[in-house]
C-alpha cells in the first residue's frame, strides 16, 4: 500500500478512536460525576470510574496521534502550521492526562470519605469540589489546545486541497463554535453538559466522522500530494 494511503487510513482510524473513546468516557463517567452524592457514587463504582479514565487516556493518545501522523504530509504544504498543530495537540493530550489524574485522585478521596463514614459538611466535600474543578478545567484548557491545533490542520487542508474544500471548509467553520462554547464556560455562562453546548459541539463531531471515513475510503487527493512533494524538492534545491 502506498505510504500516503496508509497514513490517511491510520489518521481516519485515530479520528474514530478518539471520538468513540471520548463518547464512552462520558457514558461511563457523567452519571457518576454529575450526581449530587458523587463522592459516594465514585467510591461505589470504582471499576466504572477506572474504565472511564482509561477511555480518556485512549482519547488523549489518539488526539496527539492524529497530528503526529498528519505531520509528514502537512509539513510539505506549510511547515510552521503543521508543527503548530502537532504542538497544540500534544499539549491537549497532556492536559487530558492532568484531567485523568484529577479523576483518579477523586477516586482515592471518595474511598477515604466512605471509610470515615461519609460525614456531612466536612473537608471532603470542599476537596472533592476542588478536584472536580481541576479535572473540568484541565479538560476545558485541553479543548482550547484542540481548537488551535485543529484550526491549523483544517487551514492546511483547505489551502492544499488534500481533502475536498467542502470538508475542510466545514471544519474551519465548525471549530470556532467550540471556541465560543469554551469561552462561555470559562466565564460561567454555560456548562459543558448543557443542550446548547452539545448543539454547538455537533458540527465538528459530525465533520470528524465524515473526514475519518473519507480518509479511510478515499485518502488524500493525489494531485495535492504531488504538488506538496514538488514544493519540498524546490525548497531542498534552494
Amino acid at each position, binding site marked *: 500500500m502506498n505510504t500516503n494511503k496508509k497514513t490517511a487510513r491510520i489518521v481516519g482510524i485515530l479520528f474514530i478512536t478518539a471520538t468513540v473513546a471520548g463518547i464512552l468516557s462520558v457514558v461511563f463517567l457523567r452519571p457518576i460525576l454529575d450526581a449530587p452524592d458523587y463522592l459516594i457514587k465514585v467510591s461505589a463504582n470504582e471499576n466504572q470510574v477506572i474504565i472511564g479514565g482509561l477511555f480518556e487516556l485512549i482519547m488523549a493518545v489518539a488526539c496527539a496521534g492524529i497530528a503526529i501522523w498528519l505531520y509528514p504530509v502537512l509539513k510539505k504544504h506549510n511547515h510552521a502550521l503543521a*508543527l503548530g498543530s502537532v*504542538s*497544540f495537540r500534544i499539549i491537549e493530550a497532556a492536559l487530558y492526562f492532568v484531567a485523568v489524574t484529577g479523576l483518579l485522585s477523586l477516586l482515592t478521596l471518595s474511598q477515604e470519605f466512605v471509610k470515615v463514614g461519609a460525614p456531612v459538611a466536612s473537608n471532603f466535600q*470542599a476537596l472533592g*469540589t476542588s478536584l472536580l474543578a481541576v479535572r473540568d478545567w484541565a479538560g476545558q484548557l485541553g479543548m482550547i489546545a484542540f481548537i488551535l491545533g485543529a484550526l491549523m490542520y483544517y487551514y492546511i487542508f483547505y489551502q492544499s486541497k488534500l481533502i475536498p474544500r467542502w470538508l475542510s471548509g466545514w471544519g474551519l467553520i465548525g471549530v470556532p463554535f467550540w471556541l465560543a462554547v469554551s469561552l462561555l464556560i470559562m466565564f460561567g455562562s454555560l456548562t459543558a453538559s448543557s443542550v446548547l453546548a452539545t448543539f454547538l459541539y455537533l458540527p465538528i463531531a459530525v465533520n470528524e466522522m465524515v473526514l475519518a471515513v473519507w480518509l479511510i475510503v478515499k485518502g488524500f487527493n493525489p494531485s495535492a500530494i504531488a504538488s506538496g512533494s514538488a514544493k519540498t524538492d524546490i525548497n531542498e534545491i534552494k
Partner: protein
Amino acid sequence: MNSDKNTPRLLGAAFLFVMVASILSGLLLKSVVGSGSISDILVNISDNLTLMRISNVVGLVTSMGIVVLAVLLYIVLHKQNKIIALVALGWWLAEAISLAVSKIGLFALIPLSLEFVEAGAPAASYFQTLGDFLYSGVYQQGDNIHMLFYCLGGILWFYLFYRSRYIPRVISVLGLAIESLALIGMVLLLFAVSVNMFFFYPIIALELTIGLWLMVKGIRDGSEIKTENQT
C-alpha cells in the same frame, strides 16, 4: 515557509505579544487577589469573579502564545542545529503546559472561594489549607516550573541566534547571560532561597529588545549562516 520574509517579523510580534499578555495577566491577578492572607485572597476572588476569569483567560492566551512563539523560533532557527532546536521546542512546550496547569489551580480557586464565602468565611478551617494548596502549591509552583522551562529553552534559542548571526551578537550574548541569570534565580527559588527580583527583571528588557529588533529589522540576509550540512 522558511524563506518567507514575514516569519521573523511575525516572530518579533509573537515575542511582544507573549510578553504583554504575561504582564497583563499577572497585573490583573494581583489586582484581584491583593497581598493579604489566604482568607483575604479567597474573599477577594469571590468578590471579583469576572476579573479573575479575565486574568485566567489572558494567562491561557499567554500559554498558547508561547507555543506559537516556540514553533516560529523552530522554523527560523532549526537549520542551525535541528537537535538543539527540537530540544528547545520541547522545553517551551513543557513551559506552556506548566503555565496552563498553574492556571488550572487559579480556575479551581473560583468554586472554592464561593463555597468559603457561602460557609461564612470561617477562620482556621480546611478552606485555608485547600486554598493554600491551590494558590501557593499548584499556581505558584506551576508558575515557578514554567519559568524554569522558559530559561532552559531560552538559553538554547539564544545560542542558536548566536550561531546564526541573524541578529547582532550583542543581543544573543545578552540573551544568554540574562536567561542564565534567571535560571540560577529559579533554581535558588526551588530550594526556597529568597531571590531578588532583579534576577528576573532583565527578561522584560530582553524580550522587548529582541521583539522590536525582529519586527523592525527582521533577520540579517546573507549572514554567515552555519547550517547543519556545513558543520
